[in-house]
């Protein structure tokens, strides 16, 4: 019966409304996401205001206290100063973006402008592959190969002893995290920059070469300048990915709420850290304790707002791109 009705031609206006309603579901999901996460994060705001975004207290102690909290927690249990997590997120993201942007621009120019066709035929699938390897495999290689290597060969006994009073250096930490994160986000940037490079009209390039520039100079003078908005858009998208990366960072970052100190020299790169997303993975079993649950949701809320900010800025920087008839 229902099948019979499906086979008959559908009335147009009803189809339009049905499809529109289904599409709207996505918007409803976003709205629900904000409402749910914000509602669960509310106790943290109630007890800390916005000062939970700052530092000052020992985050490790706060987490321990929250973990031990009973079903009816006191106001003191809700105390949170999450700056080390925010700092860790910003630090890993910024470092891997800077490193990744440099690699991505060079690789994109290489793929589109410089490499012979046979080489491009290899590099393009490689980039695609690197983009599609699941983060848990990156994390596995990090924790089983890179972390032991750094811990056994790069960290010297002297460095280990110098940090003994504050934190243990196992090899898991900032350096390994940034390296793997860079490998994970660079393909995204390469893909977007390549697409923009391809969309630049060939005549512009030819014009520059006709004026006597060599191909590389032409890229720098004309093509790169034309796709600047696309480079910013690629950076924004990669930033969003880096901010939200949870599992890989949780596996290789050492899992200590410690804020790496640039003043420590080389040791800086071996110091463990935690990001907003990796802290959620760390404490995923702690949802039975109300303060810890509220904390996890407030961290998620912060990530959600960061993602919104990235989406909006991604939209804004893509506006000028329309001039060149490219989709972002």
């Amino acid at each position: 019966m229902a099948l019979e009705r499906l086979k008959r031609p559908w009335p147009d206006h009803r189809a339009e409304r049905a499809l529109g309603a289904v599409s709207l579901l996505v918007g409803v999901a976003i709205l629900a996401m904000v409402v749910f996460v914000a509602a669960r994060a509310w106790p943290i705001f109630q007890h800390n205001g916005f000062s939970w975004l700052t530092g000052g207290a020992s985050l490790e102690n706060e987490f321990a206290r929250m973990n031990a909290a009973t079903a009816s927690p006191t106001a003191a249990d809700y105390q949170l100063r999450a700056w080390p997590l925010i700092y860790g997120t910003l630090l890993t993201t910024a470092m891997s973006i800077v490193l990744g942007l440099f690699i991505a621009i060079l690789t994109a120019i290489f793929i589109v402008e410089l490499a012979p066709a046979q080489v491009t035929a290899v590099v393009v699938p490689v980039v695609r592959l690197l983009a599609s390897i699941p983060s848990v495999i990156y994390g596995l290689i990090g924790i089983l190969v890179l972390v032991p290597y750094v811990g056994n060969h790069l960290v010297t006994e002297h460095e280990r002893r110098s940090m003994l009073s504050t934190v243990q250096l196992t090899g898991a930490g900032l350096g390994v995290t940034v390296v793997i994160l860079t490998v994970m986000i660079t393909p995204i940037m390469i893909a977007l920059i390549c697409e923009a490079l391809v969309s630049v009209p060939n005549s512009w390039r030819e014009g520059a070469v006709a004026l006597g520039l060599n191909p590389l100079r032409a890229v720098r003078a004309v093509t790169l300048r034309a796709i600047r908005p696309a480079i910013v858009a690629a950076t924004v998208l990669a930033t969003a990915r880096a901010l939200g990366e949870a599992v890989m960072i949780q596996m290789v970052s050492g899992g200590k709420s410690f804020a790496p100190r640039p003043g420590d020299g080389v040791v800086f790169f071996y110091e463990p850290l935690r990001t907003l997303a990796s802290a959620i993975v760390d404490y995923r079993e702690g949802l039975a304790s109300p303060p810890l649950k509220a904390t996890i949701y407030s961290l998620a809320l912060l990530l959600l707002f960061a993602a919104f900010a990235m989406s909006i800025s991604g939209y804004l920087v893509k506006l000028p791109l329309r001039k060149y008839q490219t989709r972002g």
Partner: protein
Amino acid sequence: MSTSVASTPSGRGRRSSPMSWRWSDRLVLALAWLVGLLLCVIAAAIVLYMGYRGIQYLRPSLIFERPTINEQGAASGGLLDPLLGTLLLTLIGVALALPLGLACAVWLVEYGRPTWLARVVESSIEIVAGTPDIVIAIFGLALFQLPLLAPFSFTSEGGGVFGRSFIAAGTLMSLLALPPIYTASRDGLQAVPSHLREAAFALGKTRITTIRRVLVPNVRSNIATGATLGISRIIGSTAIVLILLGGFGRFEPQGSTPVTSLLRGTGSSLTSYIYDNSPAGEGGAPQKAYAAAFLLLIFVLALNLIVERIGRAHASAAGLTTTAGVV
């Protein structure tokens, strides 16, 4: 004199060779080659190393054996359950995301009015694409802990709702698969020449009939690309499985009805199995993690290959964005 001009080192020949460039340009050229090769080396190292470990630890018997948990708490046995778990999650996720993504794309391209509503839908999908999967997972937990949705997830003896089940994880997985499916179908629909639509209208067909009989069949390959990308997103996602499924190895059905008990119960997927058996989880059985990771990598490579085969018609560097699953 003209011959000497053509051969001056400043490169006024028809084609300037890099040897005649300024040294700074040559340095940049060398760097570009270097990073290009570096990426290839990294990818090759990952694939070869995982392949080596996989051949070392993966036995056919492992695939057909169910996991068991011994006294030390380390997982032993095979990885049949995680494998089936991944399959089940993929089925649920794609079954939900495919109609939703296609409907969004069709509505936006073919109807798309009122305009403000179209903008809202478009940006919602963009936001979904940009939301970290850990946040999606944590949201799913809050959602499925609602008393209203309790029948869909794992419930404790005392009636506490955990919000963890295959249904919960699969539903939230569909949000991961949605953006690539939407983007691929939208691009396909936009590329359909308008005379196809006009011809259908001229035959007296309504819009929706045109969509069903002309447009959707026309963009089938785009939809397939999108779905494949969605699948590779789903099988690679760890955070959602860790938080919304949370099982360790074996399926743990909830209730006794054959199919629904499985869907309402918890279990594991390949990704969570890898995580649990790595030093980061509790298992500490790296050889099992390597075996599962090798299997996962093979799936990812196969999906990559499928995407490439479907998209060969427009294979170029420009196709990198969609095929890299970026948007």
